[in-house]
């Protein structure tokens, strides 16, 4: 076990009277890929948004060890449709206080092969998701939170995304990804956290999950 870089302590979230996430404790450790799985509406996206700081918890707290930088790929693309991919990347790079925002944007555009100068709303679903992922990599994050990141990507883009993700993990970074794809879980997850109806029911190594819980989750 390495030291955690991101901690959820009793973190819970309600939307009005609806409970999206019961009080939850989970640690994200350095150099690991943690998979979040569970049926639709289990609270995976809510937990990721809370870990990202995009949502305020109704109870509990999120602790970032050493003010670690976190990148977030929400399930629904989060950028400005009227701006081009380049303008979106440059804007968020400046907000992330990247020293050379233009160079960083150009680098990410080339890396993810995104059409640079078309308004974002004209991009294909796959290109929008690539832009969504590219935005999460601004600011050189040490923790990457991905909410079903490969759902709209073609096989080549999926492979490239996982190469990026595993490279980050291999360099000591952390990855938390929500997925419905059990193959991805088998291939890339070091640990698995299972959410069911807002409740964290299992956290452990992928092997343990495979042995004891795999069949129960989606039945």
């Amino acid at each position: 076990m390495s030291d955690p870089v991101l901690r959820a302590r009793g973190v819970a979230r309600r939307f009005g009277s609806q409970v999206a996430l019961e009080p939850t404790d989970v640690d994200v450790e350095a150099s690991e890929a943690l998979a979040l799985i569970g049926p639709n509406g289990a609270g995976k996206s809510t937990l990721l948004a809370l870990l990202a700081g995009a949502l305020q918890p109704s109870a509990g707290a999120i602790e970032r060890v050493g003010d670690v930088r976190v990148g977030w790929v929400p399930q629904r693309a989060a950028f400005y449709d009227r701006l081009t991919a380049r303008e979106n990347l440059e804007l968020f790079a400046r907000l992330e206080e990247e020293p050379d925002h233009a160079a960083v944007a150009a680098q990410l555009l080339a890396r993810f092969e995104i059409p640079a100068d078309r308004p974002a709303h004209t991009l294909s679903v796959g290109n929008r998701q690539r832009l969504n992922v590219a935005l999460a990599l601004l600011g050189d994050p040490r923790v990457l939170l991905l909410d079903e990141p490969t759902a709209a990507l073609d096989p080549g883009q999926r492979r490239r995304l996982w190469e990026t993700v595993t490279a980050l993990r291999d360099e000591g970074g952390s990855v938390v990804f929500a997925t419905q794809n059990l193959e991805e879980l088998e291939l890339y997850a070091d640990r698995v956290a299972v959410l069911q109806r807002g409740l964290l029911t299992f956290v452990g190594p992928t092997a343990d999950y495979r042995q004891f819980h795999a069949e129960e989750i989606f039945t």
Partner: protein
Amino acid sequence: MRQAALVLQKDLRVLVRSPLLLGVLIAYPLLVAGLVGLVAGYGSSKPRVALVDEDHLPQVVSIGGHQFRIQDAIDEVGKNVHLVRMDPVEARRALATGRVVATLTVPPGFLADLRSGLHSPSLVYQVTRGGISSRVTQQVQALVYGLNRQLQTAYVQTDLRYVQLIVTGGRATFAGRTYDVLGLARMEKLLQKLPPGAERDRIAEFARIAGVALAQTGSLLGATANPIGLERAHEDSRSSLLSAQVQSYALALTITFLALLLAAGAIASERDENAIGRLRRGLISMGELVSAKVARAAVVALVLGLAIALVFGLIVDAGGVAGGEPWQRLPLLAAGLLVAGAALGALGTLLGALARETRTASLVAVLVVMPVVFLGLVPREVVPVAGSLSDGLPFAHAVRYFSASLYDASPWKAVVRELVWLAGLGLVFGALARVATRRLLA
């Protein structure tokens, strides 16, 4: 505030890329202003009044030796009221169905009474109940006033002829009989032929004084008929289209629509585009985000407000119309546009944050704009509650600021007062908007 400036820059870029939206947002308030103008025009249009002539007035009426053309009198009234000749039955039906707003009846014997000078005949007037009845009543009163003035002139001249007859003597016809009147002048000559004596001198003195006094009768009668006259001076002031009030309302209406709708849509679109979550992750505070939306509304209000003011100024210059100093006052106007735009932007941001979705926010903003504007249009003297409510909203303050800054001879007191109001309202709405942004994250 660097982050807020970046988001402001983004918002302005997005706005420029939506020319259709911008065009509609500019055209819409101008269209509304035009429609309001048309409604106001209807309010001042000529109401239809039925004229029922039961006395069968001739085309030309002779009174006191003066010829009156009835059609001329009708035409004179027709400047304000559209008089339509009808028979009594038709007029009653038209009044009942609302085709005319009033009936004016010349009763039988009207002309005979008028000619005799022994009785004052009356016109019979009937009006519907409703918003314009008081205005129609005023128009008919004006008609009777105009007729009376013409008749007074005729009567005064007739009276003067009788006075002149008393002074100089001669033949005259009265009530169908012809008389030979001696007259004061001839009386004096006759007196000279009588034997001298105290009685003769006393009568001669009376004739002299009476002659002097009657010589003043003309002006005295004129003054009695019209103690106060009214002259219409030559107009060199601005036409109503360019009046200070219209300009102030046009400016305030346009920036109210623009600032409110754009700010409401802008903050709600942050949630619709899911960017709010990304921003919320420490990239920008919610206070800075609200500031960016308020700043955009202020910038748009400034640019478009100045453009409208420039167009007005050019029209005024081209028309060579006197009054007002639009060019010198533009900097003062600019300050008001900026602060009013910010206050309205803060209100729009509050609405957008509460509505959460762009479509809902736009609809809510449109629904709110109307009462905000109309509350500001209701005169405080007419509905005091509307005035008080309007004080809590930026529109009326913006109107007063623009009016004072453009045309008041000493604008500073009003300008400072309204500026403080607008800034205060902006801070209050901005603070509320900051709290309401929590809803965007839910």
